[in-house]
């Protein structure tokens, strides 16, 4: 890996970050040295590169050095396999048994494959064991568990290959499955598909092929409740329940990624994997479909299956009127996020805003949205009959009340890199200004200002077309491909017979007649903007339109209709210009999930990890726990909790804290849980061999601990609520110091399971910034080390665009306020608890600009160091795509968190992490200090960063070429790796004047009940031309409301009961009626109201939108079912007819 390759400026930047990090760690170390925490030093190890992270994550000494050495010679994947082999053979690290070596080898190898970021290598592999074949030889069993999902298919599949690779090295035989075991896999995987879900489900024969031949036994812990029905109680398979990890690795790993595995098998020349050929061959039958795609892009409806109520459809698959594809990248798009005009956001009833996830038809499955105002907005028909395009947000808000129908929802900006990443054939590009500009430059020697070229007059466009044979400008190119020949002829005839064309270029058509003859809808389909005035339709600058219809300026037919069914071609022939398709590619979309920007709270929320059992009531309030009495004459504030006992080695005193009153650090006091004897530090109980523990049920004098804590931090005891926890989840029952809770409550901050304060935001990429949109000044930017704008000019003004440095972050204002509270809490903690100086000294959020943060994504275990440089009103977290990629996120609607660096290094401890599967996920087990683009998720390498796409690109899209064919001509990150340019001088093709333009919050979040959202969704569906409202209604009923009704009805009849006093749950009601534990009242968990919730709205929507009679009958039967269940039939005997007439309303 070696040195970071970067310019001097970037080196300065990195060194600066690291220096400040070092300084912070020193402060934290000084603070922690006082013994107020489980460990006297900072518990987040730093990792400069991948090799460091792997070593820190898995904890095998010497791995880092070896990886660095291997990486100089071979690719990442090869190095991963090789390091695994070396660990297994004992070249690196040392292990007591063969089994342990193999286990570590697989983990190390997998960690290397996943950049040492995700938790899968530690959490996804439960254990590795050696089994016995029927012939007496040994084989390897790898036990996968749920979190293996986070590794991704390729790494999952390769982990099996690693297993095979390392077992050969140490002479273990292959797995020879019994026939019954093979069948078990078949049943189990198909069952898993039903109870959970699989991206790809292999056929039964594929499963058999894999299991029979896979040299390693893919095993796993039970993860699902479901049990197999046949093939039970097999000798070598320890459970009858479904093993989710196994299913994932076999189906989404080996079966789906067989080609990739094959590639490595070939490279390593491993035998015994020839069967992969059969597997790949079997899957190749999809080849013909691909050919089909070659010639034509077909609508895909996958994204609108499973519609959810309240999440509107913006366009049905590839429908006219839906999003028009535009290629390019803005500074806030790419990396699975796409741009639309903020006017579209507003006119789509505010459902979309920055950070809102859209499920899209293509190129990927989902994309986060960003505001880009340099592309076209929606075209709408107003109640007045006017057809107008709205490109700016101000106008959008003004005209929104007048909109009758949204004829076209505008453009969507998607970059080439996203097509490359998804390996999606390039869809034909529309004829856009960027492309026209190439044609113009090639043909015309004139120099015209770019602004004028972007929005030319019809005269200019026609002159260029006539004089230089430049194709007709996009502004005057209409959507000829959306009408057919008959419509074209009807329109032409109508204009000839009824139209008038004045000298100023305005075409007038009679309104009433155009309604009668269906001409107005044709103008709308073509997106010929017009106004309606005094029973006339007025089309301004209409000459190009008139010419394209084959008419002259006196509206006489110049030529007869050419013999073609392609109306774009017809328009070209008739006008004599080059006319290109204006919207050949449309992208269907529906809303996925709304953007997020909110503090992280556990559920129930906690402010300190201190156990108080049930003594704090349901709010788990420490204040009430301090006044708790167990019985009438019990001691006030004495509570019984589980805690880890500790002992002072010097004075022998028992305590729960890490430092004894005498100043000595304490050790856990271990005893055997069964024999109750003190084991004096031994690994196992000398009597029974069990693992000793320090956990004990103790009677804690909480009141005095509580009082002491207040005294320690010098706060007055007048708080109302400090939220603790019921019971600790970590293995040794290590509590946090109470003082931290007091200070957190004072500043109203909450913690996560590891003791850190976090704020969650949707991920959006950002490559360029302007000081004026981040709430800061150019001076501040200069202070932060920014020097020049993208054009190389010195940074002087607030509105200059500069290239964002890779570890700099922009967070929402709300996030800023929360971080400010956290900073104040951290300062209080440093001063009052640790008795050292304050660190942040922040009074306003402006004071936070420049502070260091840790970014951390769910399912991962590696934090990334970042620096706060500004704020945005959008509810998202902006960061460089590399920063997101280093957390192994892309921006398709994911969200993750930030925390203050000082908070992380002061308060995080591994000792707090829950002792259960997945407990180590989502915790900063290591901290990446420097982003090396080579070591981030490879997806980021596919981002394109030129200022302009080449002409060849636009031409290639017309042939629906595969994006990989163009890799060499596009300026991609992958082409810049290993040079200083990998960090700098990125460009974008489309600018935006405000990255945060658009509504503040998606209306999904602001609307109240689900029914309100549903109404909004359907009212929007009614207005958008590209959406079929009855279809939306039917889909919502089918995939949301009906399953909900059925599910709730079912769960009512099988429900559990709950005690309202102590919260105890019962599988069925106790025969005594009351809670046997506390005598409290027991209640239902599912009520009639929950069952009926969607019944009325379903009935109404079914009627109103005329959904299929099948669906309406289903609703009718459910209605009948619900009434039958919740109405006393003895009463109903009289009122049955009343009910019937009531429901038929």
């Amino acid at each position, binding site marked *: 890996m070696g040195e970071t390759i970067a310019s001097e400026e970037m080196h300065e930047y990195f060194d600066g970050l690291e220096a400040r990090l070092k300084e912070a760690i020193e402060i934290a170390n000084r603070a922690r040295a006082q013994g107020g925490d489980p460990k006297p030093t900072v518990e987040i190890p730093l990792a400069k590169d991948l090799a460091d992270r792997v070593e820190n994550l898995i904890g095998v000494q010497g791995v880092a050095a070896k990886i660095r050495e291997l990486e100089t010679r071979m690719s990442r994947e090869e190095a991963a396999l090789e390091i695994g082999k070396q660990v297994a053979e004992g070249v690196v690290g040392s292990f007591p048994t063969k089994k342990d070596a193999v286990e570590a080898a697989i983990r190390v190898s997998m960690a290397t494959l996943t950049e040492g970021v995700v938790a899968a290598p530690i959490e996804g592999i439960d254990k590795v064991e050696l089994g016995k074949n029927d012939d007496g030889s040994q084989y390897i069993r790898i036990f996968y568990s749920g979190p293996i999902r986070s590794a991704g298919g390729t790494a999952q599949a390769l982990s099996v290959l690693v297993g095979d690779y390392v077992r050969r090295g140490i002479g273990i035989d292959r797995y020879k499955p019994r026939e019954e075991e093979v069948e078990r896999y078949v049943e189990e995987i198909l069952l898993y598909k039903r109870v959970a879900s699989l991206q790809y489900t292999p056929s039964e024969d594929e499963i058999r092929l894999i299991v029979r031949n896979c040299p390693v036994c893919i095993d796993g812990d039970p993860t699902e409740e479901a049990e197999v029905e046949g093939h039970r109680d097999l000798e070598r398979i320890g459970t009858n329940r479904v093993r989710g990890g196994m299913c994932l690795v076999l189906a989404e790993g080996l079966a789906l990624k067989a080609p990739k595995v094959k590639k490595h098998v070939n490279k390593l020349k491993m035998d015994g994997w020839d069967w992969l050929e059969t597997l790949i061959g079997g899957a190749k039958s999809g080849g013909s479909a691909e050919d089909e795609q070659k010639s034509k892009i077909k609508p895909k409806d996958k994204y609108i299956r499973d519609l959810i109520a309240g999440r509107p459809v913006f366009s049905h698959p590839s429908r006219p009127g839906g999003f028009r594809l535009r290629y390019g990248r803005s500074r806030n798009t790419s990396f699975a996020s796409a741009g639309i005009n903020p006017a579209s956001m507003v006119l789509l009833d505010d459902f979309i805003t920055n950070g809102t996830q859209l499920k899209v038809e293509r190129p990927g499955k989902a994309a986060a949205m960003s505001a880009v105002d340099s592309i076209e907005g929606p075209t709408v028909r107003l109640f007045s009959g006017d057809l107008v395009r709205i490109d700016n947000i101000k106008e959008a808000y003004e005209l929104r009340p007048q909109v009758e129908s949204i004829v076209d929802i505008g453009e969507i900006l998607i970059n080439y890199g996203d097509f490359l990443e998804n390996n999606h054939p390039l869809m034909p590009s529309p004829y856009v200004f960027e492309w026209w500009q190439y044609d113009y430059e090639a043909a015309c020697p004139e120099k015209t200002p770019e602004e004028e070229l972007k929005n030319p007059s019809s005269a200019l466009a026609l002159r260029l077309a006539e004089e230089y044979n430049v194709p007709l400008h996009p502004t005057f190119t209409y959507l000829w491909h959306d009408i057919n020949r008959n419509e074209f002829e009807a329109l032409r005839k109508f204009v000839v017979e009824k139209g008038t064309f004045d000298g100023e270029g305005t075409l007038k058509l009679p309104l009433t007649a155009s309604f009668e003859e269906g001409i107005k809808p044709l103008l709308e389909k073509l997106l010929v903007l017009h106004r309606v005035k005094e029973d006339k339709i007025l089309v301004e600058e209409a000459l190009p339109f008139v010419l394209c219809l084959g008419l002259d300026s006196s509206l006489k037919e110049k030529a007869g209709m050419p013999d073609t069914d392609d109306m774009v071609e017809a328009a070209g022939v008739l006008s004599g210009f080059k006319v290109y398709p204006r919207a050949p590619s449309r992208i269907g979309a529906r809303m996925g999930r709304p953007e997020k920007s909110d503090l992280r709270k556990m559920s129930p929320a906690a402010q300190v990890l201190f156990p108080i059992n049930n003594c704090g009531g349901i709010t788990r309030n420490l204040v009430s726990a301090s006044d708790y009495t167990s019985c009438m004459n019990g001691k006030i504030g004495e509570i019984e909790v589980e805690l880890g006992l500790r002992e002072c080695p010097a004075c022998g005193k028992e305590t729960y804290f890490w430092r004894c009153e005498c100043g000595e650090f304490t050790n856990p006091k271990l005893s055997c849980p069964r024999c109750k004897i003190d084991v004096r530090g031994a690994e196992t109980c000398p009597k029974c061999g069990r693992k000793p523990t320090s956990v004990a049920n103790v009677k804690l004098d909480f009141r005095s601990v509580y009082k002491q804590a207040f005294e320690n931090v010098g706060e007055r005891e007048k708080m109302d609520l400090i939220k603790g926890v019921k019971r600790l989840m970590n293995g040794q029952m290590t509590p946090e110091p109470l003082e931290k809770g007091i200070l957190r409550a004072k500043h109203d901050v909450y913690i996560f399971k590891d003791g850190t304060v976090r704020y969650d935001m949707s991920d959006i990429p950002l490559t360029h910034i302007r000081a004026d949109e981040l709430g800061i000044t150019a001076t501040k930017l200069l202070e932060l080390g920014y020097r020049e704008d993208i054009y190389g000019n010195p940074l002087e003004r607030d509105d200059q665009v500069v290239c964002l440095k890779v570890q700099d972050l922009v967070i929402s204002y709300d996030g800023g306020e929360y971080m400010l509270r956290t900073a104040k809490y951290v300062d209080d903690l440093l001063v009052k608890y640790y008795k050292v100086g304050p660190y942040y000294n922040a009074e306003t959020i402006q004071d936070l600009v420049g502070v260091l943060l840790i970014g951390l994504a769910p399912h991962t275990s590696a934090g990334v160091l970042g620096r706060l440089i500004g704020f945005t009103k959008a509810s998202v977290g902006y960061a460089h795509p590399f920063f997101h990629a280093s957390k192994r996120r892309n921006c398709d609607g994911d969200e993750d968190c930030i925390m203050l660096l000082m908070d992380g290094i002061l308060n995080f401890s591994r000792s707090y992490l829950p002792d259960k599967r997945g407990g180590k996920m989502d915790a900063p087990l290591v901290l990446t200090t420097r982003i090396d683009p080579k070591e981030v998720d490879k997806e980021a390498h596919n981002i394109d960063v030129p200022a302009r796409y080449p002409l060849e690109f636009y031409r290639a899209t017309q042939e629906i070429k595969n994006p990989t064919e163009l890799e060499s001509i596009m300026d991609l990150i992958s082409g810049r790796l290993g040079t200083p340019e990998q960090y700098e001088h990125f460009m974008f093709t489309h600018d935006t004047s405000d990255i945060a333009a658009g509504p503040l919050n998606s209306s999904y979040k602001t609307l109240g009940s689900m029914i309100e959202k549903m109404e909004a969704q359907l009212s929007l569906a009614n207005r958008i031309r590209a959406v079929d409202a009855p279809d939306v209604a039917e889909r919502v009923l089918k995939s949301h409301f009906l399953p909900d009704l059925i599910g709730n*009805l079912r769960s*009512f009849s099988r429900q559990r009961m709950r005690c309202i006093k102590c919260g105890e749950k019962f599988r069925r009601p106790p025969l005594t009626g009351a809670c046997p534990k506390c005598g409290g009242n027991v209640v239902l968990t599912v009520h009639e109201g929950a069952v009926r919730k969607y019944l009325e709205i379903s009935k109404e929507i079914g009627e109103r939108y005329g959904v299929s009679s099948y669906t309406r009958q289903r609703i009718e039967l459910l209605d009948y079912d619900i009434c039958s269940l919740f109405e006393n039939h003895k009463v109903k005997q009289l009122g049955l007819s009343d009910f019937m007439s009531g429901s038929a309303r």
Partner: protein
Amino acid sequence: MLVAIKSGRESQVGIMNEIDIVRAVIEEGYQISPQAVELIKLSNSPENLLKYILATIDDCVFVIEPEHVDLQGFEASTTVSGRVANNVFTPVSEPTSEQTLKSANPDTMKVFDSALDVSEEPGLIPSVEPEVVSAVEVSDSNPEIELEILSSQGSNSDFDSDSIHDTVHGAAHSSFPNPLSPSVSPKNVERPASSFFGNTNPSSASKNALRIDSLFSNQKNSFSSSSRDEGVRYLPGRNPVAVLSDITGHSTCVGEYIQFVQYFRDRYSRLSEILRGRMNARPIESLKRRSFRRGSDGGTEELSIIGMVSDINTTTNGHKILSLEDPTGSFSVLIRNSDKELFELASRLLLDEVIGVTGSVTNDGNLMLATKLLQPDVPNSVQRRTGSHGKVVLISDVHVGSSQFLEDSWLDFLDFLKGESDSEEMQEIAAQVRYLVVAGDLVDGIGIYPDQEMELDILDVYEQYRKAAEYFREVPEHIHVIISPGNHDAVRQAEPQPALPERICADFPENVTFVGNPALVDLDGVQILIYHGRSIDDLVASVPGVSYQEPAGAVLEMLKRRHLAPTYGSRVSISPEKKDYFIIDPVPDIIHTGHVHTLGVQRYKNVLLVNSGTWQAQTEFQKRVNLMPMPARVPVVDLADFDVKILAFD
């Protein structure tokens, strides 16, 4: 007597507050208006007044209003006697009293002494379980040939039926279509001597055999919960039918918590009553209060409790711990794995079944070490009803409307009923048919599973029923048809399910009677319990050895528990009714189920268990779970001797 009432009054005046009244009313399945509560409270003996109201209130009243508070009638009744107050309403409203639990009639226990002896026999329960009768193959070459599963040719049919069980044992696990060797004759094999049938003397069975089991039923209880409001429906005619127990029109569920409690209490009280005749059990609460050490010998006392299983756990050492619950409390029971027989029995226990346990309580009073487990089961002395004649045809799972519906076979079947079969033998059988029973899933329904529309020929559910009605109009008028719904039918999914709605029934001819699911029906002297069989899915998943291939084995497990769907919260959706309609009491002559699309016939202690097959070919879902249905096979039962013939129509 008078003194007792007085003292009762004194103690109750004042403590009868609003909540008590409302609760008592809800427990009885009514609701009450605040005004009525006020009125009752003002009475000088509110509790007695309330009891009086509840005892006399009209069934069709749902909300008790002030006008239902009949003060004059109450005055009159109290002056006459305290009967109402003392006898009618004890068990439900005051379940905590020890007395309720000991309410077993001493006479019952005496009568049952002989049976008690039998059940005391160690290991009886595991050994009674007969081997599963698997099927019966129909020769391929001759479609209308029938094979008799059980015949009455021997002089002692009990022995015969039992011996055939053993005969078939070896082949029982082979999959259905495997032909059984026709040479296996019931007479060739002798049953081992352990038979318990020796205890009963078949010859002594009189024509109107005494159904001992009826003595188990808690008369008091059934008075309070069922007989009062649920009359028997008689349908006279040449082939008369009496519907003895059926939810239709009697569902009282409105979705309150207390109704769930009530439902399980009814289950407990009725099943525990059956067990109580065989063991001297004490309330669980009493176990906790006392010390069980015997001062002099240091030994521990053997105790018995009856409880509903609320939890089953396995300890790290492989023992089982049961949590048993009765209306007074709950207790843990340890089953040691060293006691093989007991452990085997315990590993077949289901959640929420009611069992009796005998054992000793540990010193700390927290655990009972079991020595004996007792299930309600069917008494050995049950005799089958005799004296009827003719045949009943049992079918289920017709699935009209499904694209897999086997219409040709079905039409052949209708031809058979009309007496139009080619073979004389079939015509002869057809002539004797008096009843046709359909145990659910008449049509395929809509929306039963996701994407069902892909597998339907008729998308309109009413159209499906109209088609079905058309078919049933072809059934000769003299055959009395009884149709019970299943999970595919257009009634509520929660069981007990009421009969199909009037709108659907109207299309069917007059000789069709619609009943609920489950329903106990008397066919001219023979009692048949019809249940669709949703719970078979649960039993297959949790009882070892019970499989879809031998569905009657699942029914047998129900019968041992005297309950059609013991486990709550799994695959069976329930509607909490006042009475537990799933309890098998009285013991019927035939239990008829369906649902799983496979055929199975067994006999257990003179009860005939039939799971009828289907008229639907293998569905996509069944293909995935590798379930082979057994379509177009029809069991025909002779009502005189319970002989079963399987007719094939494929």
